[in-house]
Structure formats: structure tokens, C-alpha cells
């Protein structure tokens, strides 16, 4: 055992961790709004909104993330006509992929609010949009928060998959350092501990939120 290897290569590992966080933040920032939009479309009574959104969600959810990453890795140069960086194509893949999961959370959250709330809102003279904005969404979002945080943790773990197209995130740096130092046990154990701490803190927060908030119906 030679734990010095971690200290010696700390700058590289931290650089990787920074990219991991950057990728996660970009993915959440893009995927969450897209997910809300898709979730609302999935609840729409207009067929031209409902069917495309449902098809999108089901299609993406039945394909592994790694394949979506490869889609965009191969597609982006064809679409844009010039090579894009692996970070950009990974970020786009994450946004497209995770949006389908956020959409289902948003849909379930809105559906957890009883119909009576909508009727009460409408009968007091609010328009449909104000009912959504002031009555349904505030309650729905409160119900969604624990699941949303869980999904963000999953997304954070998923960023390690950007490894496959060579994005230099935390896991890629770990394996690059390993290729030079031959210290697999120490390096991968460190990677595991780092991911564990971050995700465990996240899941503890989720449990707190679940206990405190309770569910509104």
C-alpha cells in the first residue's frame, strides 16, 4: 500500500472532480427545465403534445445511457459538420437522457395533487394558468423534492460514464493516473470513497427532506 500516490496526484484528481461537477451542473441546468416541459406535455390533453412527449420519454428510458452518449458522440459531428469536444457531446447526451427521467418525476408530482385542488382553484375564478402557478405547482414541487434530489445524485453518479468517450472527469483521471502509477487499489478505493461521501451526503439530505416535508395530497 502506498497512499502517497493520492497526494502526489492530487492536482490531477481535483481537476477531474472539477470537470465532474461542471458536467453534473450543466446536465441538471439543461435537463430539469426540459424535463418540466416534457412532464407538462405528458399531462396535456392535446394529442400533438402528449404523444411525442410520451414517445420521447419511453424511448430514452429504454436505452442505456452509454448508448445515448455514443449517439451524440457519432451524431454531433454529422449535425454540426465539424468536430465538437467530447465534453460538449457528453453534456448534450446527459441533458437529453436525464430530461426523460425528470419528466416522469414532474408528471408524478403533479398527479399526486388531487383534482379537487384544481376544481377549487378554477371555481374561485382563477384561470387555468394561475391555478397551476399558484395552487398546483407549489404543492407538487414540495412533493417532488426528495425524488428530485435522488435523481440529481443518480445523475452525479452517471457522469462517470462520460469516461467512455474520453471526457477527463474524475474517473478518467483516476484511470489515467493508474496507467502511470500502477496503484489500482489505492486509486480506485479513493475514487469510490469520494463518490460515496458526495452521494451519501445527498441521500442523507433526501431522508431529512422526506421526514420533514411529509407528503401533501
Amino acid at each position, binding site marked *: 500500500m502506498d497512499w502517497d500516490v493520492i497526494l502526489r496526484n492530487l492536482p490531477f484528481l481535483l481537476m477531474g472532480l472539477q470537470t465532474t461537477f461542471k458536467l453534473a451542473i450543466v446536465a441538471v441546468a439543461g435537463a430539469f427545465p426540459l424535463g418540466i416541459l416534457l412532464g407538462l406535455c405528458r399531462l396535456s390533453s392535446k394529442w400533438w403534445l402528449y404523444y411525442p412527449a410520451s414517445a420521447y420519454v419511453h*424511448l430514452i*428510458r*429504454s*436505452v*442505456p*445511457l*452509454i*448508448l445515448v452518449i*455514443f*449517439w451524440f458522440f*457519432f*451524431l454531433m459531428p*454529422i449535425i454540426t459538420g465539424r468536430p465538437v469536444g467530447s465534453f460538449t457531446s457528453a453534456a448534450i447526451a446527459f441533458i437529453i437522457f436525464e430530461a426523460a427521467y425528470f419528466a416522469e418525476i414532474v408528471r408524478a408530482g403533479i398527479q399526486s395533487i388531487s383534482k379537487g385542488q384544481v376544481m377549487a382553484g378554477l371555481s374561485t375564478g382563477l384561470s387555468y394558468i394561475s391555478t397551476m402557478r399558484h395552487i398546483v405547482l407549489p404543492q407538487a414541487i414540495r412533493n417532488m423534492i426528495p425524488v428530485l434530489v435522488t435523481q440529481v*445524485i443518480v445523475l452525479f*453518479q*452517471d457522469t*462517470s*460514464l462520460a*469516461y*467512455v468517450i474520453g471526457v477527463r472527469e474524475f*474517473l478518467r483521471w483516476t*484511470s489515467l493516473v*493508474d496507467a502511470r502509477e500502477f496503484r*489500482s*487499489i489505492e486509486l*480506485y*478505493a479513493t*475514487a*469510490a470513497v469520494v*463518490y*460515496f461521501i458526495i*452521494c*451519501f451526503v445527498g*441521500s442523507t439530505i433526501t431522508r431529512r427532506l422526506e421526514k420533514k416535508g411529509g407528503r401533501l395530497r
Partner: protein
Amino acid sequence: MHPYGGWMLQGIFTTIHLSGIGWIIALILGVVVGTSRVFPLAFLRFLGTAYVEVFRNIPLLVQLFIWYFAVPLMLPPSARLWIYENVPNVEYMAALAALSIYTSARVGEQIRSGLQSISKEQYQAALSTGLSQIQMYRYVVIPYAARIIIPPLTGEFIGIFKNSSLALTIAVSEVTFMTQRIDSYTFHGLEAVMGASGVYIIICLTIMFFMGFMESRVSVPGLIKR
């Protein structure tokens, strides 16, 4: 005659048995872990919780690398040599270990929440009708919990199929790996990836269809349909 179609079929076959065997192991481990978390022994409960938290909070890819790169190094040199000489495909075994243990933590969590979803009154009612502890589990708790657990387990079963694609990183020749191999031979990666996506979509839709049918057969009357 090009060999690429054959490669894809080989890949599909590997994907199916890798995730199939992994699922059986995950289910057995998951039941053990899930029941240990509702066991009346604090030490066992702690062990079960620790198992779930550790294996759920480390990305699967990191676990895969640990099983493939780090675990053999932890063994004594003679054992390592024996493994490399006598186990025909170490990478397949590593992928199987990582996949099944990762999935078992998730299955264990579903089983725990299924067992806990049964209200205390059910247990008390069963005991007060004169059933023994074992009979209570055999005739009341397990039949009820099993039906509640089946829908979320469908999701985990689909999950292990999709997650088996990560095995490509340690060169297990499953279907996603084959797409990359075809890409390196022909530069037609996009077509191969689209083909593999089609395979996953068909597998997932088939599982969903059969499980949907199963769920409607075993659903508990009186509960909200999900």
C-alpha cells in the same frame, strides 16, 4: 460475407446471459439484505443498511473497475496467478460480480420498503387469529409483500439489462462492445449504435409487456392501480 451481423448476435447473447445470471444472484442477495433490514436484531439491521448504502452510493462504473483492476491485486500472488491461468474470462466474472452486487443493493431496498409497507395491524391480526410467527410470514406477510414488490422490481430488472452495457469498459463482448468493435473495423459506428439501441428497446418493451401482464394478475385488490 461480412461478420458484423454475427458479432451483433453474439453480443446480444452475451448481454442476455450476463444480465440474466446477474439478476438471479442479485435477487437472492437482495432478499437476504432486504429481510436483514427489518430483522429484530440491531446488528443485522446495521449490516444490511451499510451494504445498501455502500453499494448504492458508488457509481457502477467505479465498482466495475474495482472488481476488475483492484480486487485481483488484493489477493495473494499465487491465488492471482491461479485465477489468471484457470478462469477463462476474468472480465466476465468481474462484470457479473459488479452488476449483481450493485443491483442487489437496489433490490434489497425495494424489498425492505415492500415489507415495511405492510401495516402493523396486519401482523397483529395474523398473530391474534392463532397463527405462529412462521405461519404469519408464510400465509400473510410474504404473499402480500411479494405482490407489492413486483412492480418496482420490474424497473430493477430492466435496469440490470441497461447497466450490463457498462461491461464494455472492461472488454466484455456484450452488444455495446460489439458496436464499438464494428465502428473500429468499418467506421459505421452510428449504424451499429442505432442497431444496439433497437435491441435494448425491444428487450425493454418485451419485459414491460410481460411484467404489466403479471402485475395485473397479481395486483392486490383494493389498492390504487399503479
